[in-house]
């Protein structure tokens, strides 16, 4: 089996249709494609934000994302996975992350998608800094809810 995970960390935006076409090109064994797109919201804690900066740990990021993708492929018998995460300067409404998971049936595709984003949020070394409308900046705090969501899937090897 060829490596079925495409892992990309980039500052540029992504096109969802293009990524789906790349993931499924020439195949007729796929029955369902699950997807999640994370987007920069215009407020944080009720305060308007004007910009978000995404920092990451090059090298470890790709390693962590590949491991998460491999786990998902094995666990849900996925036919393919795409993980694209943006870094650098983003604005409200901008895309942050794209998760795609395809499988013969919808349950595996949707469960795989949820597993991938839950684990990415707790195990991939990205950090967000928000700039507020009043000019102040703050690093986003990790959410306990994210750890809890990831733990529901059990331990990651």
């Amino acid at each position, binding site marked *: 089996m060829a490596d079925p995970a495409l892992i990309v960390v980039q500052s540029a935006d992504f096109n969802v249709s293009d990524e789906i076409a790349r993931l499924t090109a020439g195949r007729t064994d796929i029955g369902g494609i699950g997807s999640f797109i994370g987007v920069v919201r215009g407020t944080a804690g009720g305060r308007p934000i004007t910009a978000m900066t995404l920092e990451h740990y090059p090298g470890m990021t790709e390693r962590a994302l590949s491991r998460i993708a491999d786990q998902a492929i094995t666990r849900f018998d996925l036919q393919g996975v795409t993980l694209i995460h943006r870094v650098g300067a983003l604005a409200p409404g901008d895309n942050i*992350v794209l998760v795609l998971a395809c499988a013969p049936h919808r349950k595996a595709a949707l469960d795989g998608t949820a597993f991938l984003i839950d684990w990415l949020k707790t195990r991939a070394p990205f*950090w967000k800094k928000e700039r507020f409308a009043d000019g102040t900046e703050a690093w986003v705090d990790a959410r306990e809810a994210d750890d809890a969501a990831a733990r529901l899937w059990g331990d990651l090897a």
Partner: protein
Amino acid sequence: MKLLYFAWLRERVGHGEESVALPVGITTVAELITWLRGRSPGHDMAFAHGRLVRCAVNEDFATPDTVITDRDEVAFFPPVTGG
């Protein structure tokens, strides 16, 4: 040894990367942190809230008792917030 700092740890230390010679007798992540806190007020402030500091050794998540050597790349950062 190569040390990396990310997010607010980088801002408190004052730089994102430094090379240090690991003193004899320091063999774990926890011992390294204790020693690093003495390097500068910025280092001390960066590690002041130990509960919020995460560590990776050679790009894998590590724990306070993970064993380190002078050839390792050790990174310190807050809990991740991507996605």
